[in-house]
């Protein structure tokens, strides 16, 4: 039962992604992209990642689609007659080569959810793995039950500080591009 649901969801995600690539009208492309983000956030819930699902739902289906719509409203969208883009064979050949090369490496990966995968071991020859350490000691050392928050702020806090600075510099870059103010400069 759950397998059928997962495969249906995976099919939905793939078909909306293909529709995003193939639709010619930009507005339709953006709407289908929002549906793609919604499908992906449900996949995150199935993969037991609720923090990532919250972020993806708010960002992908919300903020990102609004930013794309605002950009399309400020620029032109060239109306055309044909609803679908004609497939470019040279680009498709390049992409097929890339996909085939990656597919041949897939059997070397452990199956998803397999308990013998190296990423899911609590101890190995070198002692305790990070996974075992974070799960075992997150509550004792920080008093926080959500292991993701504990790792994000306490164990890997410097990466989060770097992310804050990166996001800040994105706004500074956008402010420089637009002449230093958020208002429209009237002549």
């Amino acid at each position: 039962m759950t397998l059928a649901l997962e495969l249906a969801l995976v099919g939905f995600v793939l078909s909306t992604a293909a529709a995003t690539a193939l639709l010619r009208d930009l507005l339709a492309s953006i709407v289908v992209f929002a549906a793609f983000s919604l499908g992906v956030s449900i996949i995150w819930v199935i993969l037991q990642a609720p923090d990532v699902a919250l972020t993806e739902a708010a960002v992908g289906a919300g903020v990102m689609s609004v930013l794309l719509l605002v950009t399309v409203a400020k620029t032109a969208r060239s109306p055309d007659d044909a609803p679908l883009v004609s497939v470019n064979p040279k680009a498709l050949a390049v992409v097929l080569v890339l996909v085939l090369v990656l597919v041949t490496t897939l059997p070397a990966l452990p199956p998803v959810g397999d308990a013998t995968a190296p990423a899911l071991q609590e101890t190995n020859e070198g002692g305790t793995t990070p996974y075992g350490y974070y799960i075992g000691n997150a509550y004792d050392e920080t008093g926080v039950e959500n292991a993701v928050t504990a790792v994000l702020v306490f164990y890997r806090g410097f990466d989060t500080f770097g992310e804050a600075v990166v996001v800040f510099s994105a706004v500074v870059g956008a402010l420089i591009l637009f002449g230093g103010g958020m208002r429209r400069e009237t002549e």
Partner: protein
Amino acid sequence: MIPRPYFESPIVMTTVRLVAPFALTYGIFVTLHGAGSPGGGFQGGVVITSVVIMIAFAFGVGPTLDWTDERVVAGLFGGGVLAFGAVTLITVPFGGSLLRVDALPIPTKYAIEAVEVFIGAIVAGVVTSLFFLLSEGGEEE
């Protein structure tokens, strides 16, 4: 540039007036409850931004920019980065290395929640200013 008509739709305005306070409360709730349940700064910040975007849909971007002053938004993300930097440096005189918040005299859980609030402020300020810049910035055509 194609003209952008602003439709004053009473349905959208009424719905946004009803929903916006609850959504804002939910955003603050998710930010503050990042310690015990899924959530945290990133999620809460983006939810607060979507509240501002929702209000901009209903009432127009210019009036919304006048209501949330652009200096408040800039102060949110600038002050957030400075506060995060201050938390990073303030652990050094107490004996730990950089950003070891368990060296502070307050319980570690409250220090982590404070950092989550700063992260939420930064993310909300940044994405809101990017939205306002995209829709209002630049020269008049």
